[in-house]
């Protein structure tokens, strides 16, 4: 079909418009006009038909026929609805056509020859009228099929375009020249994350990245100015602030030459840009990693880069220490803590960091993942969980050595997968740096180690090149060269001939060079050199030359190492010499030296062996050793013993000589070990002791005799003293008793005289005993802490009467430097002082005797104290001075008559001062007087031994309520002791021998047994043992009475079970003092005028103590404290009562000790005293009264409980 061209169409429209106009005026045309119309329509390109009122086609033009491809006959007089089909199948158009008078639009279709449907649109209707009757209508239309198709195609493409617009991935934007946004497509909207409405009428400036606003608008201006539209890049910003990189073009739409809007089409370049940036970052980080030596700086730089690129605020790098189970963070930035990196270390815990560390792969966790992990207990979140968390382990050689973490608390979309990859990359870089650092450290260490080996060894180390120039050397080498040449060696710089120093003697130079040459040929060299130094010494060195093989097998250098072996060389020499010496000794040995193998076969014999035995060397070597001994079995036994104990000493066996003579030998044998400690042989020395044996036998006999005689002497002395003391005991005891009987004046004087004489006799006896003790070395000092002044005071009191009767001034002066308390033997000190003082007074007729004490020297606490006794007596002639301190000497034998004495005093004093590490001497002026002095060593002591309790002074007024068994075979002694005891209130039963004593002790309950040691039938020791066995813990204290005054005897008694001892002769004082000591608790009627003894009637509480306490604390507290004590006392008593039946006496002792302190401190005197007594008894192992005494303590305690409150409140 031909398309009507525009002009034609235009004309037609005009015509039709004309017709229409006409129609408006005359709606219908008449039959006459019909023809005209048909003619006009006949050849137009529009389709035209005329139908009658029945719908039959009466006319059609050519275009119709052509279009429908029908012939006239096929069309005319056919129903139009048969040819032109109604579109919807209903054919009601006809009525409309005929009855309306308005223009109509009618759409019909027909099927053409090809069976295609064609649409026809009729829009011009001309009604044909005949005499007011409409008989038909002319329709004019056109085939619109193609146009419809075109329109629909156009519509479709329009839709598609719209769709394209909307769904395009490119960003399409339309905006006004001032930037106001008119349109954005969906993709753009989404990308910018705006609601559609929001973006409309927004200004472009607001969605551009601020940094890019200016450049973008410049570009737009250029477009306006007509510049060609180049692609350009810019950056937009999403509503959340994210950058979107775009690239694209913008053009302007102009109306009437004026630009109205810009249209922009961009595509997202963000990923590309990010990839670029990432690449850039990767590059930067690699560069940083390569150039960085410092991990912290590297991490800080990396963080900076990350911050720039992806705004990483939280960046943490932790290094894992497996051994310590800790994480060390060399870099740790947490914005919640602060912007600055913090280094720190912590124990491995259950943090997110640890989770990432141990998960061993990069992890990206969102808040919900983290919370889930927390819930599961895999991790423990401290504080707020981050919105997103990236953790990448740091790995080195497949080991996880740490972790890198990045997190955000504000934006869960901040990071994506690619960031995890980035972190993974960074972790690799950091690991590289760490490894590099470690390697560097290793190299530094290794170098240092090698260097230290190189430098610190005692060896000389150097290397030389083929030109014999030094290439390296250590300090030792340099030192050696300097020592020899006076200059230090230098490394060969290859300029000029190398400087060659050798450390051997010049004569060795050539062969040294040969050795170097051999080493350069690849053969290592080992030799010794000698160097004679300037000071004529020889230095031996052991030298090793080793070729240094280069990797390709070439040898350019040889290394040398040498060390000083002079000492070794010398010791070799010495060994050689000593071997020589040994051989000499061996040759000239008097004793027989032999060596055997482990089977006893002789392998070596000294010449002396052959000489003495008469055998030749050949006859001995290879034989079994036992062959030469008298009793081979004995020798075999000895060898067995030797193998067991490794050494046999002084083994006596007889050797049989070749001629059959037997000689007595003493042998030492020992095992010989090799250097590895294995036994390889036996060597032995045998000595002929035949003569020696004989001599020693004689000596032994002589010694036996001597010892026997010494024993005889000792026991003689002991016996003598015993024998003399026994009668003396009787004498002195009887004198004491006699003195107590009513005597007249004369008798009194006689008794006094007898007493003095017997005392003198005792003194002499004691002197002799002392002397014998000293001689026997059995005099021992008994050191106690004592107050020197009180000792001198005692001395003074002792002699005061004597001096006073001779009208002599008798005084003492103690130098202030003399310490108040010293550690010394009071008895011996007094003995010496008394000796000298008694002499001084004895030989002084008028004037004075002065005792002076002073310190001569002191060493730390040990003082040398001098006691000087000056008199104005007769003095001593110089020639007699030397014999003054000899035994049994007096200056003038004639004087002996005048001045009595044994002459032993000074000799004993001399020995005693010697014993006290002092000296004794005299300065004298004959006729004018003498000063006798002695010194003694004593250490300073804190306090005098408290004599208050332990050593009570006998008070004759004290009465005892006690039953005493007195055992002595001597009737006199028995009588004396009985009288003394009875006088003090004791009930006394006597026994005269051991058996009797046992009988009595078992029959009756005694409080005390006094037992003589030497008795007929059974001695005291045996009796004591029997009694103890029988009575066990109920045994009363047993005190030995003995004349055996020697100390070792006394110990013997104590060891045999006796509790104490008294030396005979027994005086009332010393007997009762002992009795009181042991029967302290049995005091019945205490004395009235006791001097030193504690007031026996003790107060319950000592007022003085309380008053003193009140000075220091308030009364209320004091009462409280006493209350505490009441509690303590009660508990202690309860414990004691519990311990006693179980025999836990030590525990009781401990409790009492504490109690004693408390009671004493609080002045609870009665209790304290009782406690003290019990404790004392326990210490002395006296148990028989503990129970009773504890009860007594209970009574005292009760007294205290009842009275203390009243007592204290009343104070």
């Amino acid at each position, binding site marked *: 079909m031909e398309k009507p061209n525009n002009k034609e169409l235009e004309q037609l429209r005009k015509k039709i418009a004309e017709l229409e106009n006409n129609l408006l005026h005359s709606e219908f045309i008449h039959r006459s006009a019909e023809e005209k119309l048909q003619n006009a329509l006949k050849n137009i390109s529009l389709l035209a038909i005329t139908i009658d009122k029945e719908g039959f086609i009466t006319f059609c033009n050519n275009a119709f026929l052509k279009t429908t491809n029908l012939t006239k006959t096929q069309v005319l007089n056919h129903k139009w609805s048969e040819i032109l089909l109604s579109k919807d199948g209903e054919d009601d158009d006809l009525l409309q056509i005929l009855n309306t008078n308005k223009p109509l639009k009618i759409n019909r279709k027909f099927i053409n020859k090809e069976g295609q449907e064609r649409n026809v649109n009729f829009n011009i209707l001309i009604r044909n009228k005949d005499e007011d009757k409409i008989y038909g209508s002319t329709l004019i239309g056109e085939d619109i099929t193609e146009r419809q198709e075109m329109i629909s195609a156009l519509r479709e493409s329009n839709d598609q375009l719209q769709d394209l617009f909307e769904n395009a991935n490119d960003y399409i934007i339309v905006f006004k020249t001032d930037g106001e946004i008119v349109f954005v497509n969906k993709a753009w909207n989404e990308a910018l994350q705006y609601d559609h409405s929001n973006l409309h009428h927004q200004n472009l400036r607001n969605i551009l990245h601020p940094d890019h606003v200016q450049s973008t608008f410049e570009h737009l201006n250029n477009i306006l100015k007509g510049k060609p539209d180049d692609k350009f890049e810019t950056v937009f910003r999403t509503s959340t602030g994210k950058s979107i990189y775009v690239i694209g073009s913008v053009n302007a739409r102009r109306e009437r030459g004026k630009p109205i809007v810009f249209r922009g089409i961009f595509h997202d370049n963000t990923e590309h840009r990010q990839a670029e940036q990432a690449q850039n970052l990767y590059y930067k980080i690699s560069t940083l990693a390569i150039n960085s030596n410092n991990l912290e700086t590297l991490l800080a730089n990396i963080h900076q880069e990350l911050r720039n690129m992806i705004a990483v605020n939280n960046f943490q790098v932790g290094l894992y220490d497996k051994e310590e189970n800790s994480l060390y963070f060399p870099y740790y930035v947490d914005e919640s803590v602060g912007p600055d990196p913090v280094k720190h270390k912590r124990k491995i815990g259950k943090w997110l960091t640890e989770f990432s560390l141990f998960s061993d792969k990069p992890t990206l966790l969102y808040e919900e993942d983290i919370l889930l992990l927390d819930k599961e207990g895999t991790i423990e979140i401290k504080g707020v969980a981050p919105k997103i968390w990236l953790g990448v382990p740091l790995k080195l050689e497949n080991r996880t050595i740490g972790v890198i973490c990045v997190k955000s608390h504000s934006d869960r979309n901040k990071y994506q997968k690619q960031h995890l990859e980035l972190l993974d990359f960074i972790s690799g870089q950091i690991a590289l740096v760490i490894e590099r650092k470690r390697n560097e450290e290793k190299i530094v260490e290794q170098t240092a180690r090698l260097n230290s080996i190189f430098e610190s060894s005692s060896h000389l180390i150097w290397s030389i090149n083929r030109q014999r120039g030094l290439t390296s050397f250590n300090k030792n080498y340099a030192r050696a060269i300097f020592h020899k040449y006076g200059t230090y060696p230098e490394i060969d710089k290859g300029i000029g001939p190398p400087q060659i120093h050798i450390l051997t003697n010049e004569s060795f130079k050539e062969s040294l060079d040969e050795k170097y040459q051999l080493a350069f040929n690849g053969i290592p060299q080992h030799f010794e050199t000698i160097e004679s130094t300037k000071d004529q010494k020889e230095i031996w060195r052991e030298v090793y030359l080793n070729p240094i093989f280069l990797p390709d097998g070439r040898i350019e250098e040889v290394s040398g190492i040498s060390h000083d072996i002079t000492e070794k060389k010398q010791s070799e020499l010495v060994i050689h010499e000593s071997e020589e010496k040994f051989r000499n000794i061996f040759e000239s040995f008097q004793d027989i030296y032999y060596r055997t193998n482990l089977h006893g076969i002789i392998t070596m014999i000294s010449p002396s062996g052959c000489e003495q035995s008469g055998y030749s060397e050949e006859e001995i070597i290879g034989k079994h050793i036992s062959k030469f001994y008298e009793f081979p079995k004995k020798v075999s036994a000895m060898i067995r013993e030797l193998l067991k104990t490794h050494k046999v000493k002084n083994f006596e066996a007889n050797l049989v000589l070749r001629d059959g003579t037997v000689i007595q030998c003493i042998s030492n044998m020992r095992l010989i070990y090799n250097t590895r400690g294995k036994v390889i042989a036996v060597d032995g020395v045998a000595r002929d002791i035949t003569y020696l044996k004989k001599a020693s036998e004689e000596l032994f006999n002589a010694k036996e005799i001597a010892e026997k005689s010494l024993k005889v002497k000792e026991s003689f002395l002991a016996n003598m003293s015993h024998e003399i003391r026994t009668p003396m005991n009787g004498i002195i005891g009887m004198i004491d008793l006699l003195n107590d009987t009513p005597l007249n004046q004369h008798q009194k004087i006689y008794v006094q005289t007898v007493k003095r004489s017997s005392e003198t006799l005792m003194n002499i006896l004691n002197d002799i005993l002392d002397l014998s003790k000293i001689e026997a070395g059995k005099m021992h000092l008994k050191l106690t*802490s004592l107050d020197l002044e009180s000792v001198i005071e005692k001395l003074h009191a002792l002699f005061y009467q004597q001096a006073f009767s001779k009208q002599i001034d008798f005084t003492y002066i103690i130098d202030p430097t003399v310490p108040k308390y010293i*550690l010394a033997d009071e008895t011996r000190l007094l003995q010496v002082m008394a000796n000298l003082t008694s002499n001084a007074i004895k030989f002084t007729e008028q004037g004075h005797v002065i005792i002076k004490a002073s310190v001569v020297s002191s060493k730390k*606490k040990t003082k040398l104290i001098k006691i000087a006794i000056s008199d104005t007596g007769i003095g001593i002639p110089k020639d007699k001075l030397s014999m003054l301190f000899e035994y049994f000497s007096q200056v003038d034998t004639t004087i002996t008559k005048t001045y009595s004495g044994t002459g032993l005093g000074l000799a004993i004093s001399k020995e005693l001062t010697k014993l006290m590490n002092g000296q004794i001497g005299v300065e004298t002026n004959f006729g004018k007087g003498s000063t006798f002095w002695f010194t003694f060593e004593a250490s300073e*002591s*804190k*306090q005098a*031994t*408290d004599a208050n309790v332990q050593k009570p002074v006998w008070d004759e007024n004290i009465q005892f309520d006690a039953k005493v068994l007195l055992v002595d075979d001597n009737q006199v002694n028995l009588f004396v002791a009985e009288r003394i005891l009875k006088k003090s209130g004791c009930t006394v039963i006597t026994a005269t021998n051991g058996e009797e004593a046992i009988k009595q002790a078992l029959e009756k309950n005694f409080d005390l047994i006094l037992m003589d040691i030497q008795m007929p039938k059974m001695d005291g020791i045996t009796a004591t043992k029997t009694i103890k066995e029988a009575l066990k813990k109920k045994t009363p204290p047993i005190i030995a009475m003995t004349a055996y005054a020697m100390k070792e005897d006394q110990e013997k008694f104590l060891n045999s079970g006796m509790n104490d001892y008294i030396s005979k002769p027994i005086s009332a004082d010393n007997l009762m003092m002992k009795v009181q000591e042991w029967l302290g608790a049995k005091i019945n009627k205490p004395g009235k005028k006791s001097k030193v003894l504690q007031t026996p009637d003790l107060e319950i509480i000592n007022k003085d*103590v309380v008053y*003193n*306490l009140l*000075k*220091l*604390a*308030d009364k209320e*507290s*004091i009462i*409280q*404290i006493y209350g*505490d*004590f009441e*509690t*303590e006392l009660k508990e202690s008593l309860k414990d004691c009562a519990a311990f006693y039946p179980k025999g836990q006496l030590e525990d009781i002792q*401990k409790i009492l*000790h*504490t*109690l*004693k*302190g*408390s*009671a*004493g*401190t*609080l*002045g609870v005197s009665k209790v*304290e005293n009782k406690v003290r007594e019990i404790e004392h008894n326990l210490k002395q192992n006296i148990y028989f009264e503990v129970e009773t005494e504890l009860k007594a303590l209970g009574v005292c305690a009760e007294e205290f409980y009842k009275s203390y409150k009243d007592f204290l409140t009343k104070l």
Partner: protein
Amino acid sequence: MSKKILIAEDSSVIQNLSKKILENQNYLILSAKNGKEVIALLNKEPIDLILMDINMPQMDGMTCAREIRKLADPVISKVPIIAITGNARNYSESDFSDAGFNDFLPKPLDFDKLVELVKTYIA
């Protein structure tokens, strides 16, 4: 500031009395029942002087003084220690000084002397 005295004594009577009296002298008093407690306390807080009974259970005074003198901290190990003993006679002065005591007081305690002695060490 008041000086701090540690009284090591297993008898509560002496402990309390000494405490009262020394508190009246404006000292701060800490108490321990045995040597182990003393060492523990010393490591916990600064102490200016120790009064120590010799007979104590678990760790006696002699051992305790020796232990204190062996402590690593030079300040703690030099704290003055005064021995208190009911057995003064069994020991010589050198026993006390060897063990590291600065001084000693015998029991029964004379509190005048105690106060006087304490004052010579810490005024």
